[in-house]
């Protein structure tokens, strides 16, 4: 029987896009500037309908491209507004130079992002190539397994961004979550508003009594200090993420952290992954446990800042693990999440046998069987029956 966790919560059936738009309505930002793109179109479409219907007092700026969407959002944010946007894939790519500016200016912009493959070939389906490419832009990245998480993450993102003075993107897997209707618990408007609070920027360009310059040139003598500040801001954001998660749990009852551990306490083989595939992995783990395979999962929620030491500590006990990446870095080396995980382990002096799989590009199916095969191989690696492959492996792609 479906039950609400928060006593005043309401159970609804909504898609990922619908609940992200709902969260935006409840947060009620001062400005939203956006340009529609599949599969994120509905987020801003529904939100602009809220604006048109007078259900939210936000100033909605319809722009002619994502570059302008991000530019207008940056402009609104420096002016002192709580500003949000939403996009996906090529749209995020077109925002590229502005992403770095938003981070460098330390603007707490929140973006609803729907993960979709990048062209070419053109493809509208879910993979994480778009946001993985933006992983070094100085944005906090929070990934969602399902619609409930995307809703909860949007609400938390506003507080995290404003406390950390860092732009924050919340993502869902394109179509798999963005267009999947699921059971979601939503909270009353006033409780969400009370949680996110009012945005009071320390400095705002529209505060003409305290004028200042923003975005000036800084050469060899000052640029590095400001970029160090940005990197340090990201390191400090870790504690902020945890603080906001704690506050969220105290208020609404759902628990969040850097990542979710599923049956890791006694796990001998583990998968580390991000997004909706983590849910499918949980389903596989339950089946494997019945067969005696001690399988576990680490589902990364906060990828930037990366919880390196924490993950290293939690993975230290397994005999073999695999990282499932829904993006390839085409580097001749491994995929992004794997690189982060193994560098965390190496820096902590931990050496565990591991594998890296790239899966699901362009929305390619990842089934329970595929995930079970990974665990089966890990089990053999753990028992020294087979050696781990020293290169990226691919799931469900026709190679020969």
């Amino acid at each position, binding site marked *: 029987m479906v039950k609400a966790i928060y006593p005043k919560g309401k159970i609804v059936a909504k898609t990922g896009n619908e609940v992200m738009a709902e969260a935006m309505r409840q947060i009620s930002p001062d400005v939203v500037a956006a340009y529609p793109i599949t599969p994120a179109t509905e987020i801003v479409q529904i939100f602009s309908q809220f604006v048109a219907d007078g259900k939210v007092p936000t100033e909605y700026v319809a722009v002619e491209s994502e570059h302008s969407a991000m530019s207008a959002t940056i402009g609104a944010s420096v002016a002192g507004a709580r500003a949000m946007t939403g996009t996906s894939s090529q749209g995020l790519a077109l925002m590229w130079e502005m992403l770095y500016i938003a981070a*460098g200016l330390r603007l707490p912009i929140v973006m609803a992002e729907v993960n979709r493959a990048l062209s070419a070939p053109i493809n509208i389906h879910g993979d994480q190539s778009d946001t993985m490419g933006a992983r070094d832009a100085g944005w906090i990245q929070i990934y969602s397994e399902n619609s409930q998480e995307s809703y909860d993450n949007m609400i938390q993102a506003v507080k995290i961004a404003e406390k950390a*003075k860092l732009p924050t993107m919340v993502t869902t897997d394109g179509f798999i979550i963005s267009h999947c209707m699921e059971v979601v618990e939503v909270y009353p408007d006033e409780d969400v508003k009370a949680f996110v609070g009012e945005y009071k920027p320390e*400095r705002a360009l529209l505060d003409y009594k305290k004028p*200042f*310059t*923003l975005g*000036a040139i*800084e050469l060899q003598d000052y640029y590095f200090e*400001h970029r160090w500040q940005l990197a*340090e801001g990201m390191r400090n954001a870790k504690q902020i993420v945890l603080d906001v998660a704690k506050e969220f749990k105290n208020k609404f009852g759902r628990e969040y952290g850097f990542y979710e551990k599923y049956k890791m306490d006694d796990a001998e083989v583990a998968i580390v992954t991000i997004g909706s595939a983590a849910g499918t992995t949980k389903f596989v783990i339950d089946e494997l446990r019945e067969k005696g395979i001690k399988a576990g999962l680490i589902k990364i929620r906060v990828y930037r800042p990366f919880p390196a030491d924490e993950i290293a500590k939690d993975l230290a006990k397994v005999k073999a693990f695999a990282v499932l990446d829904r993006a390839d870095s085409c580097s001749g080396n491994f995929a992004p999440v794997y690189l982060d995980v193994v560098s965390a382990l190496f820096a902590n002096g931990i050496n565990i046998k591991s594998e890296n799989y790239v899966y699901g590009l362009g929305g390619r199916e990842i089934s329970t069987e595929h995930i079970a095969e990974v665990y089966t191989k890990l089990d053999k690696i753990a028992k020294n029956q087979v050696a781990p492959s020293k290169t990226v492996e691919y799931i469900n792609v026709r190679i020969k």
Partner: protein
Amino acid sequence: MKKEEKKLTAAELPAGGILEAGTAQNFKTGSWRSLRPVWNKDKCIHCLTCWIYCPDSAIKIAPDEKKTTVVTGIDYDFCKGCGICARECPDKIKAITMEEEKK
């Protein structure tokens, strides 16, 4: 010798590259000058062309007794000696001439 400017550390700098307004006033660029504009008060017709063109706001102006804005001199703290004022001063007037800076 000029004193070495103290550079702020990352801990001292405001986040996001905020610069307070009006800091250019503290940065005296007059020392960059190798040619010096000299203003002839008697020739000047106060057309303010030099004031419009000066890229460093180094032409000083003020209201006279009739509340008309007039040129009152050159701000040598900020004048870099570019000579635009001398060139733009109307040909028939030529109230500004550039002279070698003597230091």
